[in-house]
């Protein structure tokens, strides 16, 4: 792991390869810019509901979540010659009901946009998981960092199917860290202006 200080923002830029180790996730702090490489998995609303239902029934999951990162995304269809279509993050609170179950099983990272519920953040702290933010709406830009995509489960869900993505320096920022840090709260507090 490299930890260069980015002088333009004061934040660290860290390159990480999946699967993530406990040491790596526990070291990350809010505001750190991370470039993720390796394999990550996609899942959003309906896929999460199915994953958690499978866990409750004791059925096997389409991938081993231990040490992995889930990206909350529902991409547009890929054109010929492209690995994937537009692929920006979706709003994460909709996955709040499901994420703690996956974190207990070893999930070490989630990528989305928007704040997470207290129960998710408690599970993150207890088990050493990190929530990364990506820029919403920048789906065309982000898709250029995805070099391969393959549907591995729930094909009938279309855009919501579980995909195995290969990413190269996928840019994210640590929004909620495993120590309880909250970039949304910090950022807002820093720029809030009191009424005149």
């Amino acid at each position, binding site marked *: 792991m490299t930890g260069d200080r980015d002088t333009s923002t004061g934040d660290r830029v860290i390159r990480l390869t999946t699967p993530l180790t406990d040491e790596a996730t526990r070291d990350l702090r809010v505001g750190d810019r991370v470039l993720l490489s390796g394999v990550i998995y996609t899942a959003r609303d309906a896929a999460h509901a199915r994953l958690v239902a499978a866990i409750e029934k004791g059925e096997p999951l389409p991938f081993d979540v231990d040490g992995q990162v889930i990206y909350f995304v529902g991409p*547009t269809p890929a054109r010929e010659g492209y690995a994937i279509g537009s692929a920006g993050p979706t709003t994460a609170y909709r996955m709040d009901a499901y994420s703690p179950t996956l974190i207990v099983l070893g999930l070490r990272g989630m990528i989305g946009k928007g704040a997470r519920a207290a129960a998710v953040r408690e599970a993150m702290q207890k088990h050493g998981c990190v929530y990364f933010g990506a820029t*919403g709406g920048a789906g065309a830009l982000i898709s250029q960092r995805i070099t391969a995509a393959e549907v591995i489960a729930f094909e009938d869900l279309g*855009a919501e199917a579980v995909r195995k993505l290969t990413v190269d320096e996928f840019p994210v920022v640590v929004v909620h860290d495993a120590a309880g840090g909250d970039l949304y709260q910090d950022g807002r507090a820093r720029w809030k202006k009191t009424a005149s």
Partner: protein
Amino acid sequence: MRTVPYQTVVDAVAELCVRACYELPEDVESALKAAREREESPVARQIFDEILQNAKIARGGELPLCQDTGVAVFLVKLGDAVRVEGGLVTDAINDGMRRGYEQGYLRKSLVKDPLRRVNTKDNTPAMIHVELVAGDTITIAMAAKGGGSENMSMCRVLPPSAGVEGVKKFVVDWVDQAGGNPCPPIIVGVGIGGNFEKCAFLAKKAVFRHVGEPNPDPFYADLERELLDRVNALGVGPMGLGGTQTALAVHIETMPCHIASLPVAVNIQCHSARHKEVVL
């Protein structure tokens, strides 16, 4: 009575859908550039750069601006001296939208039933609002409205005693609560008046307006400016990571209402404000 062939409407709508999802409108892009210059947070300025870079990539026509190509919303002004020959204007719009979403590699995001949740696979139905107007033209305005920002909508019927202060508090508190979820910098559509359903429609109509074009009534233009200042003072910033530019604009649309009621609705538009219009 002027006639417009059914297929002409289908073709025009298909093109509207595709172009809207790849080409960020000029008014939105200029508003984003101006906001980037005003932004004080360096992290937020980087986000503005990403958003503008994304618009440049999408304009190439290979990748849509955002993966959520949304519910297709249409505001139609149907002249009383024109008719669509060969079928209903609403059917033509659905046919055109279906074709545009397929040919443009756009995401099909609608489910047939709100509780049983099976995808319609063709993004139908479009949400179509038809207004009858004088004249022999058909104006079709289209928005690809994403779910992240749409979910941060709210409608309340306040008592008249709440007054303008009650409206301001409702809007500002709601944008604060929405935080980074709706992909700020946002455009805040506010509907005031009418009744329960009309004020929600007014709020949606408000996000169709050209960014920053003020309400023609100076009283409401002032209120728009004040609300924009107050929203930007919240510190939410682009993507909720903190900053001085939470919204690009606040647009208010109004209409008369009952003596007992003060309906207010907020509809939030994300920074990827995909709108296109055609006159047939």
